[in-house]
């Protein structure tokens, strides 16, 4: 069974299965990813993040419909946290995307974060590649804005939308979450609620203080996702940002930086994998014990470990 070929031929089940294999870290998945890699790099990848309750899923759903109206095929990846206690997850984003579920131009996948943030961004990035190779023109990656995980995903995305809602406290939520810097576009959702103007103003002020001259000045779009207001403007903003990336040469730069990072990350993993396979359990136990006894600090222990590996111990 050649999943990669089937998915390149447009088989939805093959795409779905490959994402499962990626999530499971299954054997053989590298081979499949290798096959699809030449077919990636086509899609506009958009990260969407913001605090819980900001209406992200509804916004993603409305945006997807708008993009479909513009003739684009859309992939959606909705990431929710795995429960640290049970390892399970409840993924409810599709509730707000029901009308998309039978549109053959849309592919939606719910993903659980499954532990470490590094793991989250890696599996998500690979799932994005699957949908890219599958032929989705735009891929929307929705995550709950909680910090580092989003920054990782923003690096893999071309454009990032940060969703804000008015009246959720005195402070812009993104500042609290530390994700202000990653926004290319702000969507002030639920803009029919009191305080929307104020939120927009605060964002503008903040951006004026923090944006380098000559750099992309993030766009702010007011939306009411439940009634489709501002959604066309949001899609326009994304197009504008993509155009800017291309025209300014920043796209090229970003891609280069991303690719390098991917290479380094992959190399790290390769290396660690090899290290793990080669290491003797006894060495590990000895070094751990030295650290426990506080004779050796972690860094020195690690150096020792690498040294032993090099010498082929």
């Amino acid at each position, binding site marked *: 069974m050649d999943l990669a070929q089937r998915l390149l031929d447009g088989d939805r089940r093959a795409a779905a299965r490959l994402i499962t294999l990626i999530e499971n870290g299954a054997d053989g998945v590298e081979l499949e990813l290798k096959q699809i890699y030449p077919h990636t790099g086509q899609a506009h990848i958009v990260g969407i993040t913001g605090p819980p*309750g900001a209406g992200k899923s509804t916004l993603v759903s409305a945006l997807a419909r708008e993009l479909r109206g513009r003739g684009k095929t859309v992939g959606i990846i909705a990431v929710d946290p795995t429960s640290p206690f049970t390892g399970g997850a*409840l993924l409810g984003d599709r509730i707000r995307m029901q009308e998309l579920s039978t549109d053959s131009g849309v592919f939606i996948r719910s993903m659980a974060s499954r532990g470490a943030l590094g793991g989250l961004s890696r599996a998500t990035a690979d799932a994005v590649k699957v949908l890219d190779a599958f032929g989705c023109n735009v891929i929307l990656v929705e995550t709950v804005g909680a910090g580092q995980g989003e920054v990782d995903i923003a690096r893999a995305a071309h454009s990032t939308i940060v969703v804000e809602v008015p009246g959720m406290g005195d402070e812009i939520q993104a500042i609290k979450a530390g994700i202000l810097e990653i926004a290319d576009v702000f969507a002030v959702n639920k803009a029919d609620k009191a305080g929307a103007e104020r939120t927009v103003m605060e964002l503008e002020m903040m951006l004026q203080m923090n944006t380098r001259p000559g750099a992309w000045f993030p766009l702010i779009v007011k939306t009411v996702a439940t*009634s*489709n207001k501002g959604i066309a403007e949001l899609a326009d903003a994304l197009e504008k940002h993509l155009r800017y990336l291309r025209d300014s040469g920043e796209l090229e730069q970003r891609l280069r930086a991303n690719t390098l990072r991917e290479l380094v990350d992959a190399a790290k993993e390769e290396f660690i994998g090899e290290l793990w396979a080669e290491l003797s359990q006894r060495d590990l136990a000895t070094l751990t014990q030295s650290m426990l006894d506080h004779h050796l600090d972690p860094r020195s222990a690690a150096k020792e470990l690498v040294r032993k590996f090099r010498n082929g111990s």
Partner: protein
Amino acid sequence: MSLRGLEEEKRRWEGTTLKESTSRFPERKGEFRTASAIPVERVYCPSDLPSLDYERDLGFPGESPFTRGIQPTMYRGRFWTMRQYAGFASAEESNRRYRYLLQQGQSGLSVAFDLPTQIGYDSDHPLATGEVGKVGVAIDSLEDIEVLFADIPLDAVSTSMTINSTASTLLAMYVAAARKRSIPLHRLSGTVQNDILKEYVARGTYIFPPEPSMRLVTDLMAYCAEHLPNWNTISISGYHIREAGSTAVQEVAFTFANAIAYVEAALEAGLKIDDFAPRLSFFFNAHNDFFEEIAKFRAARRLWGKIMRERFGARDARSCMLRFHTQTAGCSLTAQQPENNIVRTALQALAAVMGGTQSLHTNSMDEALALPSEKAARVALRTQQIIAHESGVANTIDPLGGAYFVESLTDEIEARAREYLDEVEKRGGTLRALEAGFFHREIQESAYRYQKEVESRERVIVGVNSFQTEQMEPIETLRVDPSIGQAQAAKLAALRQRRNAGRVKEALERLRDVATGSENTMPAIIECVESLCTLGEICDVLRSVFGEYKEVMIV
């Protein structure tokens, strides 16, 4: 004896007689709690009610604070209304059932609609597949309503309709049917449930988002205040909140949170409190925990009166009276040994009567298996009649008033419900709390806890987790003829052929304009109904203007 003396005496008893007994025979559990997890003491004494003030806290029936009942004579004057929720398949069949129930001594009609009718789809809509006529009667147009109420004196019966997101349209049809029979509108009496907020929280038959839905609710209230003075414009329902798994306290608190939102919306729409408040009615659940349920009804009456007086400045005593319908708890019925459900229902019904309900529906024993059969529905009605005529409980008012335990529970439930209401306030009011999933989260938490208690057998359900029998004897259940879907579709097709297409289009256009603007929607909906627009057509217009709601998923 003084309260302090009594306390001392109680301690003495605990140290001697009680201790002697428990040292030899320990109690069944270390801790006793009600179904809503309120701790229950071993025995209650006057010292458990140290601040009870009879005048202030209990009063007399028909007078503030209405703890003991809202009428001066209660069931000594007239029994509660025995109102069995019923409606099956076609309008013709339901009409036969209604006439049968009226003949059997039932005093009011209660109409159940099928799900397409409740969610605003015509019977031939793809989403209606398999649903037509299933949980109630299928209504597509005025013609169906006319058949439904044929030969039933609309000016002499009171009709309760369990209908929410499409309440305006169904009431419009009722009004149009009465007009065609030249019955003056002020003679119509009955209730539409019209409680959209609990649909979002618990029952799920919503269509539009909360804000336009609230407008439809207040439009209906305003229309009735002017034209149908004897119509209960809303039945604010804790029933479904409880069915969704809430505790008794949450049932009271969340129902009142919704009620407060309606009152505020009506005030904002320019209505005066004492003009509409007397027409607000409520709908509660009667669950298993006997005393807790009785206390719940009493606490709800007292709390509602206070909210109306203190928060909304109501002057009219009728504005402060909590009038409510009760239904026994559907979720307490078991599929295992279904006959046991008769006993459960009887106990729940007894609690509702001891709690002073105005009307009552008793569930049929087979409802965990299928729609009720005629025999099961009859036993359910007979249960109420036995309570009314044979048990003697209806001969005095609030028979448990003054019982230390019940008074203490009443205080506790009122206090806990108030805490919840304060919490809702802190979250920016009902609509905000709803949007943030506050009610969903609280209810789901309780539902999950309940399920876990049943599974650990901390909570015994007879026939389910204890006292099981191996073999289940089959009982006779009702089946709905699946051809009803086609029959309704054929009727619709014929109607669409026959009616005046120009008039239909015009009425729908008019409705669209009204919905887009801010005028009261009721007259335009009545015009649509009289022009033989279908329910689905009317709701499609409103959907296109108002948008559709999607549920909140809270983990």
